[in-house]
């Protein structure tokens, strides 16, 4: 009986550890996707500026409040603008950016096809 009791306690402790580790992981994941506005060119995760430290704390709070990753991104986007996100959103200003690699790929493909097939 005592054995089961201890066993249950150990299982519980292990589970809580997992929960905490999960939280820290997603906290870091989010911070890595954010651009620090003080030291531009660095992510919030890498930065040790006052702003980045506060932002990391704020993210931690938001996760504990039960906000999802997407909700935190949209919250920060609303406060600081799209610039804070490393992943540019697909819109009128950025579709050239997103489509250019595809266009270059297609053009390269067309050149290759022309060289190899039409020569014959």
């Amino acid at each position, binding site marked *: 009986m005592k054995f089961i009791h201890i066993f249950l306690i150990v299982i519980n402790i292990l589970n809580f550890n997992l929960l905490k580790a999960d939280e820290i992981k997603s906290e870091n994941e989010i911070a890595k996707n954010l651009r620090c*506005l*003080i030291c*531009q060119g660095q992510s919030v995760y890498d930065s040790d500026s*006052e*702003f980045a*430290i*506060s*932002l990391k*704390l*704020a993210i931690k*709070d938001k996760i504990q409040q039960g906000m999802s990753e997407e909700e935190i991104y949209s919250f920060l986007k609303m*406060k*600081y*603008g799209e*610039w804070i996100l490393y992943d540019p959103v697909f819109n009128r200003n950025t579709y050239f950016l997103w489509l250019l690699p595809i266009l270059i790929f297609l053009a390269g493909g067309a050149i290759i096809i022309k060289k190899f097939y039409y020569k014959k």
Partner: protein
Amino acid sequence: MKSKFIPLIFILIFIITFVIFYKGLKNPNIYTPSTNLEKEVPPFELKSFENDSIIISEKIFKNNDYYLMNIWASWCIPCKVEHEFLMKLKNNEKIKLIGLNYKDNFKNASSFLNDLGNPYDLIVSDRDGTASIEWGAYGVPESFLIYQSKIIKRFIGPINNEDLLEIQKLIR
């Protein structure tokens, strides 16, 4: 025909690239968030600077007054520069100054105010900086002009004489 066409394309590409890079050279690549946004005041619950009583944002910002929410800290050098302009604003009855003490300790902050004067009608303290995140602020000093619970103008960096004149014009 073909031999004329290819150099022309090369020259064209070169010119386009040159223009893009030349323009990019002149653009400042430091991003600052936009300053002219009509936004609601983010609600907050913060400790008062003098004592530990909790101050709720809804009780501060009443409708028909202008407020200047100023984020400051005693360790911030530009805050000392803007201080004289805040002192000038203090004399204006139409505007109330709210200070948000950012990541500071009580002793340093109160000696800062004793030395230079206290322009604020109310000071709240933000020990860990998370309240400033709610305001969309990213450094000190930063100021928000508030009217009818809306942020009507935002000043990033220290307030200078020009900003002071602008505020006085807006609240007239």
